[in-house]
């Protein structure tokens, strides 16, 4: 079942060109709405204005090599392994969703454009695996990790605009997977129902970029890059410097440090991060 291309059987009722047209339309919607969102919210303008403002506080100039190094770190740590998250559970859930979504999208494009008929088993398996990964990460987040539910004690069933992205993403992958399962079982009625729900969810997911947080996957890497740059060039957004407590100069400047903590202060552990925020 997982080795067969679910889109191949679909071409019997809907032409391959129509399916491809839908995929292209969704891609255009994502790009167009992300650009419109950037113009509408002036986020790019704000981003570059802030970067320019930080120039005045630089203590060192970054070369091209430094910036490439930072970009590599952003790609490997902040993006690929969701390094910005403090909560390890949320980080794992996010990685499952992100990599699952990438697998799902890439294999969808492959299954609808490159292999309109029978596809290599591995491509179809990656499509199903992507859907399952998104579902595991997404449902875990939805039921157990959401701050407004786990920490704010908000009802599990309250749905707000912020849920548009996660729900449409879960709908797309869940109904897509169920559609594939029903199709392999030969259940025509449920196949049609889940296909319709799959298309509706996907339309909400890709057509709702302007109202959902879909575009964060483009903005967040830029913000992560900026965060590392201001640290590296010393501008630090007016944040205090990173003090080395063992430095004699620092100890001389701040005598409280050696007096209360000794000349070689030890690692104090995670403090507040030891606990999940849930004091209600």
């Amino acid at each position: 079942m997982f080795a067969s291309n679910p889109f191949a059987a679909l071409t019997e009722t809907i032409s391959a060109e129509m399916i491809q047209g839908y995929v292209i339309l969704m891609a255009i919607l994502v790009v167009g709405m992300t650009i419109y969102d950037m113009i509408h919210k002036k986020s790019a303008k704000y981003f570059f204005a802030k970067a320019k403002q930080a120039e005045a506080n630089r203590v060192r100039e970054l070369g091209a090599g430094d910036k490439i190094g930072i970009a590599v770190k952003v790609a490997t740590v902040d993006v690929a392994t969701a390094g910005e998250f403090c909560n390890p559970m949320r980080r794992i859930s996010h990685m499952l969703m992100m990599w699952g979504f990438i697998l799902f999208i890439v294999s969808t494009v492959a299954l609808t454009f490159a292999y309109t008929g029978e596809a290599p088993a591995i491509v179809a398996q990656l499509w199903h695996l992507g859907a399952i990964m998104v579902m595991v990460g997404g449902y875990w987040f939805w039921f157990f990790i959401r701050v407004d539910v786990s920490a704010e004690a908000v009802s599990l069933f309250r749905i707000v605009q912020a849920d548009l992205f996660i729900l449409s993403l879960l709908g797309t992958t869940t109904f897509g997977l169920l559609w594939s399962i029903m199709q392999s079982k030969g259940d025509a009625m449920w196949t049609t129902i889940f296909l319709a729900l799959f298309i509706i969810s996907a339309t909400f997911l890709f057509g709702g970029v302007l109202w959902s947080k879909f575009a964060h996957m483009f903005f967040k890497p830029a913000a992560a890059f900026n965060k590392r740059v201001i640290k590296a060039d010393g501008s630090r957004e007016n944040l205090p410097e990173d003090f080395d407590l063992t430095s004699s100069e620092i100890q001389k400047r701040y005598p409280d440090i050696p007096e209360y903590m000794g000349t070689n202060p030890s690692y104090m552990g995670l403090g507040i991060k030891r606990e999940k925020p849930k004091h209600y």
Partner: protein
Amino acid sequence: MPTFVYMTRCDGCGHCVDICPSDIMHIDTTYRRAYNIEPNMCWECYSCVKACPQNAIDVRGYADFAPLGHSVRAVRDEEKGVIAWRIKFRNGKKDLSLLAPITTKPWGKYIPQLRDVPAPTQEQRDSQYLYNEPKYIRMDDGGIHTLETNGLKIVEGVQY
């Protein structure tokens, strides 16, 4: 000015929601990021500013140490056990950079076992002293230190 959140820095972890004494830091319903739902009720207590692992929250400094609206940023580094403050003038000149310990022992260890301490006597209960006074406030050389006993007078604007 009450707290505000840099949306690009916040990751919606919920630490500020958890710690806010006024219960006014909440998760935004559009972007799932933290925000101050009731700026008028903000005490500007800095709890969320210090608790935020991403340093995503900003708030003005009090007029007594930051007149004319300096930028005040804090980094509470629990792993090092210190808090650092940086205060900058509006003209961009750095004014003040402070660093102070917030703990001298690893978190969660060396918790006083108060149930093992003998119960206070009646005399201690009737005394004006708090628990461990005068020993822990270095006043074991006599009575409580006052401006008077130190030969000082209150002068407006002077810190003692």
